[in-house]
């Protein structure tokens, strides 16, 4: 734990235990999403599915990166991850992004993906709101993750016909915003 780090965040008025619980729940959401997206990606096949596979893969890898980026902050603030992987799964801040009943229904698959991203966008907005002007490092991290979650949402939303995402797919490396937190 980084004692002074925690102390200054507490003195700024943040309930650090509450914040830690949120960070752990969101870390759980990232790692479980990485797992569920693996299954979704594998099932994105055929003429429709193949076109979406690439962005599902980028989102999958970036969600794993988000998990990796969150862990150091959790420990800096004096928190820890649960020892039980099942408990970790069940405390996720977002519901499981399970494969739809008909795995050949690409639209249903996209709905699962976009709902997962929307849950993440809400979660990191909450953390940004809690930490803005009070816990600069957590805010910076949550904001970086939020940037990427918003892009994921807009990619999947575009494929659902909700309107243009406004930007291109990743070209080259993943996690343009979160990269600085990955050691």
């Amino acid at each position: 734990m980084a004692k002074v780090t925690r102390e200054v965040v507490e003195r700024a008025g943040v309930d650090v235990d509450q914040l830690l619980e949120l960070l752990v729940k969101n870390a759980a959401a990232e790692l479980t999403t990485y797992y569920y997206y693996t299954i979704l990606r594998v099932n994105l096949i055929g003429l429709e599915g193949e076109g979406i596979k690439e962005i599902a893969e980028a989102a999958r890898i970036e969600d794993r990166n988000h998990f990796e980026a969150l862990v150091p902050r959790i420990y800096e603030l004096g928190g820890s991850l649960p020892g039980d992987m099942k408990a970790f799964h069940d405390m996720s801040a977002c519901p499981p992004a399970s494969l739809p009943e008909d795995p050949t229904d690409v639209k249903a698959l996209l709905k699962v993906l976009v709902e997962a991203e929307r849950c993440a966008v809400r979660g990191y907005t909450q953390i940004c709101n809690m930490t803005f002007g009070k816990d600069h490092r957590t805010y910076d991290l949550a904001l970086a993750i939020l940037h990427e979650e918003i892009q994921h949402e807009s990619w999947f939303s575009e494929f659902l016909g909700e309107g243009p995402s406004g930007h291109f797919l990743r070209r080259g490396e993943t996690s343009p915003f979160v990269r600085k937190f990955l050691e």
Partner: protein
Amino acid sequence: MRQFTSEDLARYNGRDGMPAYVAYKGRVYDVSDSFLWQGGRHQVLHDAGADLTAALEQAPHGEDLLDRFPVVGVFIDSTPPRSPGR
């Protein structure tokens, strides 16, 4: 439709086998089946068995998400009105 006072509602806190109910703008919703309300808690900050009308103003989502849950009653606020300040 069943009427809930704040005391009635408080019993439906999602713990010890009780369903999880929340009130919003006079309606009572059953959120027991939601993954995000396990154990009667929502995103660390909110507890079931309460009127969340004010809390939702600060939430990173709108009231449309409540449409996913069944309405089980109406909320009659039993809190005594505040006496006017001097």
